[in-house]
């Protein structure tokens, strides 16, 4: 008899049989459905007067950006952007003007590229007398300065500089809103999923004690080894399934509504300082895949707490506290090792700026990127936690 299979199904039933699971799942579903469209809800107001709905405003911007998609970020596009922006009045709130909406809206990302690359101010760019070579030189200069100031090792700085040299230039502009929303929502979705896992899995072991079912389980033939495995597998299955469903909904809505265009948009253009040679589409896939692995680790962590503390409220409190601290505490870059360890913990790491930052992991003189090594570390840590919890469960005594 495949007992593990039956035990596994019953363990899943125990987790999903609770009302709280369905309430939390419904909230997550609503979040996934609402997130891609949150910016389109409501209206745009100017001095208390409704100018347009956010949706119609966005539609104009989207059409403009789509028209520019696929063009090189070169002199021709820069000049178009500068010309468009020169028509915008030189006022504090220039983005609220009719001229901005009419001429410059479509170019805001191109214009942003020029500004962040060169460091020039609004009024300086309007008197533009530079060319693309200047933009790229300044960009390189600023990125190199940033790398020097980021408490990186000499090896890392060389690695990133070499990487930047290898990137194809000029970069190409792509309309990429679907991916931008996916990356922008990433941290929020991750934190909420962590909270979900904390709530749903904190009772996996502890509830057996609270329900007083622990003695009959432990006195059964398969009550130790197989039950432990079934519980852990069920917990992982529930958390990863919910996360995958949520991710699929989010990807489908984003790509469905905003179109899949822009997959190849370079991450280094999107992220000013980074010199990554991957696209924004690849970054989305990497981020959401790592999220699943991080959830496996976090699920095992919460279940280990549940077993060690034997109290679901205590396990929930500890895990939620870590989630909150992960989002709140930021260790200064100057404390390189501690800062890196903290930022690579699952509760901190699932933020795009941590996942794609410049700190690497050295192996035999090679710089391994965080998203290449962190999933392996997470799998390794998951196994260690699994062994600890298993040992603890095997030794459990109904005192």
């Amino acid at each position, binding site marked *: *008899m495949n007992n593990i299979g*039956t035990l596994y199904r019953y363990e899943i039933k125990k987790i999903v049989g609770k009302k709280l699971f369905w309430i939390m799942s419904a909230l997550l579903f609503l979040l996934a459905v609402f997130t891609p469209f949150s910016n389109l809800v409501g209206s745009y107001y100017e001095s208390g007067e409704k100018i347009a709905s956010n949706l119609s405003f966005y539609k104009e911007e989207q059409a403009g950006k789509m028209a520019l998609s696929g063009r090189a970020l070169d002199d021709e596009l820069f000049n178009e952007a500068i010309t468009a922006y020169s028509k915008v009045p030189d006022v504090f709130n220039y983005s609220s003007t009719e001229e901005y909406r009419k001429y410059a809206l479509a170019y805001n990302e191109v214009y942003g590229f020029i500004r962040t690359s060169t460091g020039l101010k609004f009024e300086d760019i309007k008197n533009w007398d530079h060319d693309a070579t200047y933009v790229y030189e300044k960009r390189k200069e600023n990125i190199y300065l940033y790398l020097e100031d980021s408490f990186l090792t000499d090896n890392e700085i060389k690695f990133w500089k070499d990487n930047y040299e290898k990137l194809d230039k000029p970069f190409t502009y792509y309309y990429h809103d679907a991916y931008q929303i996916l990356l922008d929502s990433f941290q929020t979705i991750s934190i909420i999923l962590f909270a979900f896992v904390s709530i749903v899995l904190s009772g996996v072991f502890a509830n057996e004690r609270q329900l007083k079912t622990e003695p*009959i389980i*432990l006195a059964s033939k398969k009550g130790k080894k197989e*039950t432990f495995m079934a519980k852990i597998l069920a917990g992982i299955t529930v958390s990863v399934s919910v996360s995958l469903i949520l991710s699929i909904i989010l990807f489908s809505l984003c790509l469905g509504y905003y179109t899949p265009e822009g997959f190849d948009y370079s991450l280094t253009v999107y992220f000013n300082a980074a010199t990554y040679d991957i696209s924004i589409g690849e970054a989305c896939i990497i981020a959401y895949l790592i999220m699943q692995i991080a959830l496996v680790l976090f699920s095992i962590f919460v279940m280990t707490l549940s077993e060690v503390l034997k109290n679901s409220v205590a396990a929930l409190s500890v895990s939620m506290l870590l989630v909150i601290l992960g989002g709140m505490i930021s260790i200064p870059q100057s404390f390189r090792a501690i800062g890196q360890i903290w930022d690579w913990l699952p509760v901190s790491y699932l933020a795009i700026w941590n996942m794609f930052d410049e700190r690497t992991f050295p192996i035999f003189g090679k710089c391994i990127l965080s998203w290449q090594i962190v999933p392996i570390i997470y799998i390794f840590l998951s196994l260690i936690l699994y062994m600890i919890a298993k040992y603890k469960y095997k030794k459990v005594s109904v005192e």
Partner: protein
Amino acid sequence: MELVIDRLSKQYGSKIAVDRISAKLGKGVYGLLGANGAGKTTLMRMICGILKPTSGSVSFDGIDSEEEDFRAILGYLPQDFGYYPDFNAYDFLFYLSSLKAIPKKEAKAKINELLEVVGLREVAKKKIKTYSGGMKQRLGIAQALLNDPKLLILDEPTAGLDPKERVRFRNLIEKLGKDCIVLLSTHIVSDIEHISDEVLIMKDGSFIFQGKWNDKESSLEDFYLSQFEEGEDSE
């Protein structure tokens, strides 16, 4: 078929809950009597292998109580029987059959048989949280019998049962005692008198009596009550 308890002790800080108990039990029904706090539940938990003893050991035909093979022959009804409120009786028993490694087909037949025996067949698909105390206790008895145990440990099995159910249960235990070792604890002396082959009386973590009560002149109830009185006098 022999259950060997060898110098079994359990100590919590300075309090000795079970004090170097030794016994060899063969086939039959053993009634375990003792006041609250005498150490009955602690002893039963250690026999089941779910409570780590401070010292000593328990084995069944040479199989140590910590081994999976020991748990394979064990049926256990804890004093405070826990259940999953949202499971129905059938699901609950099927889940426990899986825990006991009973093949699916065999489990289904056994569950139906036991539901009939404990009188829960009609309500098998109802959620356990809707059951009365007596129904839950009967479900607990059924789960302990799922794997046709050779060693059956029942911690106050008749608690919550009405007189009719108690009589039915006593008959069942008597029948089971012919093929396996049954150790049951209770406060109801008449239950023990009716079905036990041997009586074990515990006080302060030790056996103060072990054997067939028929050998004695006074009634078991009087002796049991006198132990309570002694305990109160000494306090």
